[in-house]
């Protein structure tokens, strides 16, 4: 490849970005770690990270994990059948339908959550309709259920897309071969379709779980201000309590969760690739 006369010019050309990445990606992360591991006097300490074990903080973390897992599961259950339906359709129609499912993502994320506030309120749209029909009203605003609903609504497209992509890439001949060899539709699904779609499932899970775990806007809007997630706790440390050290320490805890997720993902990805 002769695009560059020598290596020097290539490095010269990439140096602006390398500098940019060092200043705006690497250094800021090091600062989070530095603040997280020091106290206000600059002395090294693990107490910021250990704070996560205190009851209030631990509760917020546990709640975040539970809600994120629940919404990831709901997203998966909703998205997988959809992916199968979409990938079995004719090409022209399914690209249109896939676009339809992604379109809401182009609306501002906060506006989408805001509309659920309007819909779910005690005297909101859904309850007005229910009352009109003389049906019992639902009161889930400011409860964990509302937060899960908000997460599912906002992140569902992140699950649909990778699952649909991996399902539509499966060669029809493989499925036909399984059927020819006597597998019934359940066997074909369990032993052919499902294993081949594992990479899509895994990336869908990551793309839903991480934002759900770390959100603070959805819980503020749909959970009232009473249900705190770990994202809310960190946000408060930075914007209201100005305890950057504690906030950074808790961020390190979040990053550990993200790392664990990455490790799990790479393990499953390898298995999915083998089968």
């Amino acid at each position, binding site marked *: *490849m002769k695009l560059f006369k020598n290596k020097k*010019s290539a490095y010269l050309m990439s140096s602006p970005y390398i500098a940019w990445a060092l200043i705006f990606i690497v250094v*800021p992360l090091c600062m*989070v770690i530095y603040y997280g591991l020091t106290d206000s006097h600059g002395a090294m300490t693990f107490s910021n990270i250990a704070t996560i074990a205190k009851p209030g903080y631990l509760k917020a973390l546990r709640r975040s994990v539970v809600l994120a897992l629940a919404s990831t599961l709901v997203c998966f259950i909703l998205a997988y*059948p959809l992916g199968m339906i979409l990938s079995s359709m004719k090409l022209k129609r399914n690209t249109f339908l896939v676009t339809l499912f992604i379109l809401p993502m182009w609306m*501002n994320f*906060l*506006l989408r959550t805001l509309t659920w506030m309007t819909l779910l309120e005690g005297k909101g749209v859904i309850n007005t309709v229910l009352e009109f029909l003389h049906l019992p009203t639902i009161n889930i605003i400011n409860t964990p259920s509302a937060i899960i609903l908000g997460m599912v*609504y906002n992140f569902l497209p992140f699950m649909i897309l990778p699952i649909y992509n991996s399902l539509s890439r499966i060669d029809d001949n493989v499925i036909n071969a399984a059927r020819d060899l006597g597998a019934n539709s359940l066997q074909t699904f369990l032993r052919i379709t499902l294993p081949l779609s594992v990479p899509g499932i895994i990336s869908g899970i990551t793309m839903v779980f991480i934002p759900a775990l770390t959100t603070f806007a959805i819980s503020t809007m749909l959970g009232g201000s009473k249900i705190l997630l770990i994202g809310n706790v960190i946000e408060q440390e930075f914007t209201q309590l100005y305890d950057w050290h504690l906030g950074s320490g808790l*961020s390190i805890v979040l990053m550990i969760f993200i790392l664990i997720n990455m490790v799990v993902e790479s393990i499953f990805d390898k298995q999915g690739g083998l089968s």
Partner: protein
Amino acid sequence: MMKKVFERVYLALLLIFMYAPIVTLIVLSFNSSKSRAKWGGFTLNWYVNLMSDEAVASALVNTLTIAVLATVFSTIIGTFTCIAMIGISKKMRSVIMGITNIPMINADIVTGISLMLLFRFLHLSSGFSTILLAHITFNIPFVMLSVMPRIKNMNFYVYEAALDLGASPAYAFSKTVLPDLVPGIVSGALMAFTMSLDDFIITYFTKGSGFETLSTLIYSEVKKGIKPEIYALSAIIFVVVLVLLFIVNRAPASKTNKK
């Protein structure tokens, strides 16, 4: 067939789930009663008020300016870097791509906080410039990840042939390499623009006080109670996006028809 019916119903239910809130929002933007649950009659008041609402107008301008500038800068930097990657050793390339992946994998809240710490450390006054720097930073990975696959699969013999036939390197580059990259660059730029428009968390931590984008404005209004003007604005945004998507989808179709 039972299965077909079930499939249709499932699709319809999920589409209702996705679009019910948006339809509600558009309907409420014409509702003359300020209460969100009661229908007080049709009105265009909120749309009229929107025109004279300076807070919303400036937030809209800020959002669009930042999105456009961040897209332009990140597309240029990202594309240049991808081209430079061709001439770089494999090891160095994987290090650079690894660092580039960090903002994509990391939680937005951590990215936002880390940039806030950096800007405070550098004593940059928060506002337009800090948000722009942050947006360029999280946009570059999207551009690079959509341009890189094109670079990897590229055939450079055409470029070398052009050189052999007497083309200057710049001319050969613009005639052989660049056209291959354009689809990747365009989709990367589109991604960057979308991400920038939609971002709330990173903007929230890097904005400082007194400077608002649409997202941060909406978030601060949630606590005070939403103005119906915001419904009107979001209805407009949705229709604009719909029209843009329609045009983008139609454009390549009409081109192929002509051929």
